């Protein structure tokens, strides 16, 4: 499992039942937006994550609908198990993140 995938899963496991959208996940994981969607696509493809369009009226809200992501119950369990097996030295995480600290866009 790649380090960005671990960071995305850790971010989503903070509140597994809570729906979040791509930009928000990127900010929590401190990863840039371009790296988030490929990871979410793979996780969704293997059934760990599910997504849906936000149920709002875009005209009323004055903005387009967001795409919400959430870990499936099975995905949350498997993510916890997978993360428990990997050991990622802090130095590797810091090496990946410093460029994006303070603005993970």
């Amino acid at each position: 499992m790649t380090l960005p995938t671990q960071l995305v899963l850790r971010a989503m496991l903070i509140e597994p039942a809570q729906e979040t959208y791509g930009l928000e996940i990127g900010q929590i994981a401190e990863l840039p937006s371009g790296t988030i969607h490929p990871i979410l696509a793979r996780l969704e493809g293997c059934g760990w994550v599910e997504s849906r369009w936000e149920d709002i009226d875009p005209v009323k809200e004055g903005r387009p609908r967001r795409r919400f992501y959430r870990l499936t119950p099975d995905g949350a369990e498997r993510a916890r198990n997978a993360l428990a097996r990997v050991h990622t030295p802090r130095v590797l995480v810091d090496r990946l993140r410093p460029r994006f600290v303070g603005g993970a866009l």
Partner: protein
Amino acid sequence: VSHRDRDRSNARKLALELIRVRDLAYDRVHNYELDPDLADNIMHNATRANELAARLNVAVDLDLAGDFDRDTYTDLGRASRVIWALGHDLGRARARAGDLYSRYGLRVGGNQDVATANVISPPGRVPQCLVALAVRVLPVPDRPRYAGEFRVELVDVPHPERLRYAFRVLAGAWQLRRALTELPRTSDGVLVRRAKER
């Protein structure tokens, strides 16, 4: 539209984007007070953008009948990285320019000051074009979904960061394309997992 036509069309658009970014880079370097290292970086990448755009245009013109060769696909990858690097540096350049405007009490874009420039507003044309280009890199069945996702995220991003966001989405589009093409689908392009849910 055939696979080859799409590749050629994407390469041509990427070449155009490289030229736009190059021009934007020259404009920033000449019109803003930048630190020398940042200006050097921007000029170096602007020169690479120029070379890559020329190579991609030649490749598109010559490869009228066949698939692109491996070097051209490598150039396409390089192009997205150069665009990303320039977007990153231009984002920093913009922040630096904003500091200068703020410090000297100048105004941005005529009668709009820095504070009001940060208020939520519709995305500009360049970020929208970059995001639209990123969507066109993706497999056809996935385009409407990601067009919607990127559009709303672009609105959610603070105004001064939108260009940088758009560049990063474009730079990541090839990776997203790879992720999406690896997923199992039915013959009409629907993801297998999604098909089971319906």
